[in-house]
């Protein structure tokens, strides 16, 4: 099992004193290698919180439950250790890092992970070879890598570079947090192609999205509906089509009751 989450409860530190707000209220989910899962749900259901907690973003408190990743206690690991263990979060809003060329960023990231795993760092020529291979596969022009990380990038460009990072860093679990947000159809197709190129027996995907449309391009094996901090229903890809027709209303009412 790649990812095993059991009854996870997570609160967010609130601005009012002593009032922590519970966002995840007992979430359970399992992902095996080779599987593509999608989590869909309305705003405020806790989808992004879930992806942030898996990646180890500070500011969240786990109050109950457990999460294991490839047999290890995920919540015990620092964010960089989770990355080195093979977890990758493609951000909804990738951050800018002025003055740092993408090429340099990728090299430092890859070698930091290798070092954490006790592997030898990649030499510059070997790294360049790897990058050339991956950019060719994903149809990304090499000179995008000379630009500072995400500075002045369009939404589509940012998401494409997230897929390049995936290709270079070679993670086993890819969490894509609303990778379709802000993209037009053409950009979406390009990004989806990139993700599909990475599908393999050993790799798992967790897609987080509002809209069924993404799932036309990246076909899931399992679809889950999330509402009010929990997964309230699971099914196959037909569930996504049903949601598109009916909307989330039924699930929101259920949880409100």
């Amino acid at each position, binding site marked *: 099992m790649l990812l095993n989450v059991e009854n996870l409860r997570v609160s967010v530190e609130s601005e009012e004193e002593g009032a922590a707000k519970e966002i995840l209220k007992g979430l359970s989910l399992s992902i095996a290698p080779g599987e593509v899962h999608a989590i869909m749900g309305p705003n405020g259901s806790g989808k992004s919180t879930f992806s942030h907690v898996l990646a180890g973003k500070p500011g969240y408190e786990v109050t109950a439950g457990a999460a294991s990743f490839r047999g290890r206690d995920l919540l015990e690991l620092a964010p960089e250790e989770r990355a080195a263990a093979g977890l990758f979060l493609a951000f909804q809003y990738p951050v800018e890092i002025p*003055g*740092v060329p993408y090429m340099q960023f990728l090299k430092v990231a890859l*070698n930091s992970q290798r070092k954490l795993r006790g592997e030898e760092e990649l030499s510059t020529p070997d790294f360049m070879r790897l990058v050339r291979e991956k950019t060719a596969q994903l149809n990304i022009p090499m000179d995008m890598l000379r630009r500072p990380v995400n500075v002045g990038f369009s939404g589509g460009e940012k998401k494409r570079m997230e897929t390049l990072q995936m290709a270079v860093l070679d993670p086993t679990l890819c969490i894509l947090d609303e990778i379709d947000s802000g993209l037009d159809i053409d950009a979406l197709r390009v990004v989806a192609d990139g993700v599909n190129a990475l599908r393999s027996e050993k790799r798992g995907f967790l897609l987080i999205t509002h809209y069924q449309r993404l799932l036309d391009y990246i076909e899931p094996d399992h679809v889950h509906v999330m509402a009010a901090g929990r997964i309230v229903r699971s099914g196959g890809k037909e569930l996504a089509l049903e949601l598109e027709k009916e909307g989330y209303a039924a699930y929101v009412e259920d949880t409100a009751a």
Partner: protein
Amino acid sequence: MADQNTVKTVEELGEKYKYGFETEVEMDKAPKGLNEDIIRFISKKKGEPEWMLQWRLDAYHKWLEMEEPTWAKVHYPPVDFQDLYYYAAPKKQAIKSLDELDPEILKTYEKLGIPLKEQEVLAGVEGASKVAVDAVFDSVSVVTTFREELAKAGVIFCPISEAIRDHPDLVRKYLGSVVPVGDNFYAALNSAVFTDGSFVYIPKGVRCPMELSTYFRINEKQTGQFERTLIIADEGAYVSYLEGCTAPMRDENQLHAAVVELVILDEAEIKYSTVQNWYPGDAEGRGGVYNFVTKRADCRGRNAKVSWTQVETGSAITWKYPSCILKGDGSSGEFYSIAISNGFQQVDSGTKMIHLGKNTTSRIISKGISAGRSQNTYRGLVSVGRKATGSRNYTQCDSLLIGETCGAHTVPYITAKTPHAKVEHEATTSKIAEDQLFYCQSRGIPEEEAVALIVNGFVRDVIQKLPMEFMAETQRLINISLEGSVG
């Protein structure tokens, strides 16, 4: 970019201040205190002609009438000028070859990584380049290498005390012409008691065949080191000069009041780079060097060019404004600065660009990084005179704050007395965002390395202006000075 170094050198963060050690060498000291006798003692020790002694005494009398300036954003306990030694030199002097050098001193410089061994550098060891070194140990220049090669080109590069004896005409002509003796309190003090520094003269049309470099160390307790440097680029000449400093651990504050004068004639160019790493004080903010420096370049000639590039990471207090007087028509001045403050350090630094001639240009790029409980101030003046038509200035000063307890301040002064000039000023202030840090960590980059990476990106524009040889040392220095700044 030396990103491999970034990752590697962060490992070295275990040793807090790598250069904190002393050398046990016999020192020849004047008694503590400052008076005419001490000045005569210094002048005699240096074998100076009468005119030089008079120059010093004149400066001393001016100094006695002056008051310490207090307008900067730096705070320190009052300096007792009578409680310092103004002269300290190793006992053995006037050696003919490296073999005669006190082995302790040689060992010290090896520890500092200074290429004193001519053979090593000449043999073309990987990464080594032709850098001539005039090493100053406290107050006396110890060895000058590469003299023969420079002599062939007609370049004079020697300790200033030697220049006073061997090239008095040149020294008399230019000394004090850029920073007059009465210019400011610390310049006057320096003029009275300077004990060494570099003298460089590049003859007409000569491009100095190698980078010139000087290392300084403050070794003795309570020694104020007062260097005086004078560099003259005659018509059409070019020289690149690097100044790099380190100092050992100390409890008492040490005063470093240097003066650097650059003279650039028609069509000539001087590139002056500084990497400053003086002892910054301990974790509680005690001790550390006071770096109160006057540096000024006089672009006297047509199309004269000067650039100041500085990386300031050390000292308890840094107080300096490398400046350019742009007299010659078409002359240009550049100032590139990275000033890092951590712990309890204080920095009040910047530049003055004085546009006097027509079509003169100046460019200022200042990157201030504050961390810990430090205070970092950029203070700059751009002044365009009435006759400086067609002049242009571009200033960009950016501040980066790391953590919640440091401060960054910007004090720009702009005066323009002609409407036919263009002055642009941009400033940004930013923090290392938690989001940026988390983004890096989510990619496998631990927090300290992420800070180093982000800071590297922030200072990139300025790092690229440094001579190649010193980029790696600078990266290392920046990473080490930011140790422990996060969390």
